[in-house]
């Protein structure tokens, strides 16, 4: 499996796959699928894909750690997947700004300040901006891996914010937001468990180091 993941075409294939949702959304515009309220349709369609890409991105590390799957090389795609989450978030915010608010920045700010579901969604989006900017290998070097990793844990906040944003915006049918909440809970819960078990395994300060290499890597 890792051989497929490391083949030179793999990244190109994943890149194209990540654009398929956008392609489908645009295609639906030509077949009447946007319906009577296209702005709302597009906001919902792009919003769904932000949550999906955040979940996929957050699934990379847990999947790598399940040894029998042999997917350690998934790490090659994590940055791209995260950037696509940001890409769909950017489209989503742009639709809201351009069509829903018709470029009325004042009313956007009023929403951000006044309306909790917008506040939380906007926060989730803004937190992704520095992650996108510092996603290059050069930035990792410049920042130092530790600090870079600390910063990029902000994606956990964005994921939670995204789910809350969705939950708060539906009128009464919460089944979809609840499903996303469950997925995020599993993905983030795994990290909490991994953190505890890692801590248990790590030698106490001053104690002789064990031989086995630490499994702590970026998550």
């Amino acid at each position, binding site marked *: 499996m890792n051989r497929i993941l490391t083949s030179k075409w793999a990244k190109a294939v994943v890149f194209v796959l990540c654009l398929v949702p956008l392609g489908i959304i*645009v295609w639906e515009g*030509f077949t009447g699928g946007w319906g009577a309220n296209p702005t*709302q349709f597009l906001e919902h369609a792009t919003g769904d894909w932000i949550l999906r890409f955040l979940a996929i991105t957050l699934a990379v590390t847990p999947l790598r750690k399940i040894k029998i799957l042999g997917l350690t090389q998934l790490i090659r795609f994590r940055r791209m997947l995260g950037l696509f989450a940001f890409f769909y978030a950017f489209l989503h915010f742009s639709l809201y700004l351009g*069509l*829903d608010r018709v470029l009325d920045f004042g009313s956007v700010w009023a929403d951000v300040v006044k309306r909790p579901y917008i506040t939380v969604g906007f926060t989730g989006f803004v937190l992704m901006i520095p992650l996108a900017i510092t996603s290059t290998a050069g930035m990792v070097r410049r920042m130092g891996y530790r600090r870079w990793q600390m910063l990029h844990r902000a994606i956990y906040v964005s994921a939670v914010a995204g789910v809350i944003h969705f939950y*708060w915006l539906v009128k009464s*049918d919460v089944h979809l937001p609840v499903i996303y909440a469950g997925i995020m809970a599993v993905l983030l819960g795994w990290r909490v468990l991994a953190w505890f078990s890692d801590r248990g395994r790590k030698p106490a300060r001053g104690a002789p180091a064990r031989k086995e290499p630490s499994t702590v890597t970026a998550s």
Partner: protein
Amino acid sequence: MLLKRSPDLKYSDITPRDIYLNRRKFLYGMGLAGGVALAGKGIANLAFPSTRAYASTTLPGIVKGQFSTDEKVTDPHVVTTYNNYYEFGTDKGDPAKNAQKFVTTPWSVSVEGEVAKPRKFTMDEILKLAPLEERIYRHRCVEGWSIVVPWVGYSFSTIAKLVEPNSNARYVAFETYFDKKQMPLWGRAGIELPYVEGLRLDEAMHPLALLCVGMYGETLPNQDGAPVRMVLPWKYGFKSAKSLVKIKFVKDQPPTTWNITNAHEYGFYSNVNPKVDHPRWSQAKEVRLPGFFKNTPTQMFNGYSDQVASLYNGMDLKKNY
């Protein structure tokens, strides 16, 4: 720039069946360039005709009613494919798909409560109580979109007077049909069912309040509330209960579904009011469907202030939202 294409015909020129049978699907194409100001151009006419999402029959003898707006009537395709009818699913497109097999014959409406002559009206009787009027009303959803619909019916007061409400009757409670077998998605609705609504008696007796049996010259499609519903153009759409089975005149303010679901967001009155925001969004503007931009200013009482404002004299409309 409003990206829409509506029929050039005035509604009065329309023979609806011909129009929709030959109607081509609208398409929205849009440039996502830059992602920011979505310069959209784009409604093309595709080569395949849209299929009708419902079966209706023409209503005979419709006369022009009062209160009609001369605004452009919304394409019937929009009004029949973009619906809130949670018993048939919570997606806007769900009711058009899921309500097709909804059985509406035979049908009767029980009009009861604090009245001298309680009575069950069959649908045939309802259709013949008074001349059917066409009334072109603006319809504003609490979610921030609006349409203009040529409804068919007559003032609710017509049927109310027949049962002779007594002096205890201060409110009117409406109840929508509910059947888990016919509405298998009911469990997803997230609201208590059957759907119930209510009005103060003077609101219900106002001539604008329409007991509605059709639209676009035909009987109501299932997804739009067949066979008989209320239409209250100065209130948010959810106040206009669909598929009525019971109308009860009562002494005390009746419970209403969205108020039960979330009292903080949906009040008993729910009059259209651009100055009183929904807690989660502004009500100052609306998107006129079909369209991209939410830039149509919302009017007080949805533009029916001259008719209904006096019903609320002296009331604090922020408190009585």
